[in-house]
């Protein structure tokens, strides 16, 4: 049997912009500082609390520490989530703008999220004759 909440109040005013994770962050595309697509945002990492531990009154609210991306297709279909060490972290401190897409203030070349593309470029594409320079 579902219980009813108390009568709804007006939410308190906050100084900054409000973001709902599902509406404004998750599954959005992420572009680097040059507008190059990096990845999509699969999950968020928060600074706490740990599961099963009571939260003391007055505890500091968790913050977003990183955007997470990784191999989530299988777990979205079959349930669960990949182990956290398989997820690639992009620090929140690198995020410059939240809009229709999220923009980073750094180049994607420096991020772990693009290691597959870098590996393919260096190990496969670059070894194809003519693959290591611009077309003439």
């Amino acid at each position, binding site marked *: 049997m*579902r219980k009813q909440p108390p009568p709804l109040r007006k939410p308190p005013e906050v100084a900054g912009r409000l973001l709902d994770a599902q509406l404004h962050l998750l599954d959005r595309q992420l572009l680097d500082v040059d507008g190059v697509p990096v990845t999509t945002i699969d999950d968020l990492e928060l600074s706490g609390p740990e599961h099963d531990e009571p939260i003391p009154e007055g505890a500091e609210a968790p913050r977003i520490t990183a955007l997470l991306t990784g191999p989530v297709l299988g777990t979205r279909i079959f349930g669960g989530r990949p182990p956290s060490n398989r997820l690639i972290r992009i620090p929140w401190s690198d995020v410059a703008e939240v809009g229709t897409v999220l923009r980073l203030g750094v180049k994607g070349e420096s991020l772990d999220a693009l290691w597959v593309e870098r590996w393919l470029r260096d190990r496969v594409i670059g070894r194809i004759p003519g693959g290591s320079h611009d077309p003439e």
Partner: protein
Amino acid sequence: MILNDLLGSDVRDSDGGRLGEVSDARFALDGTPGQLLSDARLVGIVVSPRTAASFLGYERLGITQPWPVAQLLRWWHRGSFLVLWEDIARMDPDAVYLRPGYAAYEVGLQR
């Protein structure tokens, strides 16, 4: 903590009564100013009594078009409310427990 572990969890009051499911987490960009953006602080969780799924946020954004879709989704999410971080007592893997005497707030994002 990983956010997807929280989304979809049951929400229970201090007596263990089920109130609904976590359908979203609300953040405010009012934390410590960073080099690019301020820290995003968890304001609270959006609780939906029927479903954890949320589609385009019709129930939170005041969107009225297309009319039949807006009406349907508002009806589906009726009774949704916001619970602030201060009223969360514990976050277990399967449920979020609220403090006694917690307050429920309107869920709209409009100011």
